[in-house]
């Protein structure tokens, strides 16, 4: 918990450290489906869509209203490693309405349980290809946890809360930038195969001179086949 607090404070401080250039506020909806291929391998597919309600640029007079931003379709195959870990690799296809963007990803994730709280760590590397641009390389570390709102164990039809923080150094054309994220969500554990989460996802991206801030209302449905 102490580590999570420290990381969150760093993220908030970072987001207010530099001049802001372009802020976005919107809705991020996500459907995440996963299935067991066998006892060791799993397949996960995510369809994520972003819609912007309000966008503010460096000049406060330059504002934009609602627009559809993009849809991502990500497919990941994972293999269980040890008792609670998993190694995974996958591919994301992004459609922005004007162009297609491609991303490959590799990750290692593991969980720990302390009392009622379940901690999740995720280390991810990804590479993004976009027409006319150099490849973007990202390294990501995410620390998250969830816990039931009532009691010490999460049962069907109970509510839980979830929080996570993530740090992402980004490298493109030998230029380094950085992104930090915080997520706070309320979840409903509908059954062992269904859960839904609604929350706030705040992001700050910058290159140590300027920072762009994003604030998303997130709605995510997790479904296990």
């Amino acid at each position: 918990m102490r580590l999570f607090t420290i990381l969150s404070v760093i993220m908030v401080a970072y987001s207010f450290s530099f001049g802001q250039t372009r802020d976005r506020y919107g809705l991020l909806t996500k459907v995440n489906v996963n299935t067991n291929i066998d006892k060791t391998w799993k397949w996960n597919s995510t369809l994520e869509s972003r819609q912007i309600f309000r966008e503010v640029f460096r000049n406060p007079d330059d504002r934009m209203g609602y627009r559809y931003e993009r849809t991502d379709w990500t497919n990941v195959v994972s293999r269980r490693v040890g008792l609670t870990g998993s190694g995974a690799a996958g591919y994301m296809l992004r459609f922005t309405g004007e162009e297609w963007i491609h991303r490959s990803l590799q990750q290692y994730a593991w969980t720990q349980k302390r009392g009622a709280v379940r901690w999740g760590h995720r280390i991810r590397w990804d590479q993004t290809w976009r027409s006319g641009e150099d490849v973007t390389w990202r390294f990501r570390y995410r620390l998250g946890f969830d816990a039931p709102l009532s009691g010490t164990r999460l049962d069907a039809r109970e509510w839980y809360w979830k929080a996570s923080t993530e740090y992402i150094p980004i490298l493109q054309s030998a230029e380094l930038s950085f992104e930090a994220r915080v997520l706070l969500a309320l979840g409903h554990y509908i059954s062992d195969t269904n859960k839904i989460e609604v929350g706030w996802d705040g992001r700050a991206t910058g290159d140590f001179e300027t920072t762009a801030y994003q604030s998303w209302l997130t709605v995510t449905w997790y479904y296990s086949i």
Partner: protein
Amino acid sequence: MKNMIWALLAVLTISAPLSGQLKYEAEERISRKEIPKPMLEFMEECCEDERIKWYKEEQFNTFSYEAKFKKYGRLYSVEFNKSGFIEDVEIQIQQDEIPEAVMDKLNHYLDKTFDKFRIEKVQKQYTGATDALEDLLEEDEVEEELSLKYEMVIIAKKAKDVGRWELLFGDKGEWIEQSKIIFRNQDNLNY
């Protein structure tokens, strides 16, 4: 805007009919006024200074009550039947507090039964006469007439199957019973 509303409605609508599915074991936090009178009287007698959290645990066709609190730096869980009479006292301990000879026996059983395992929680479970359990809670005094068992939660791998198991051992480390706990999907922490 229209797209956004449809997306939100789709997610919420699809999830609604699926909420009827039941699980036969569920723990629910309850208030002090919802617990049976004998349980309240017992807890007031032995543990009136503690900050107690009250729970109702529903199993298939029946239910029980639990009072959880911290005392002497340990986590205590006192279980009562549905009429409010005490059944056992569980005290969370560290693995190294189990006597070496007992631990050897437990490890032997775990090594033999599972391909790989990690102990997540160990509790001493005391059963016996109400007065003896009351003394245990009030004065941390273990009377001879109390019966001791070790309850353990492990995460383990057995024939490529990974899950959590709850195991019960006798005071000499002899295996009594075990049950598999449903392993909660971790997709919302991994993706």
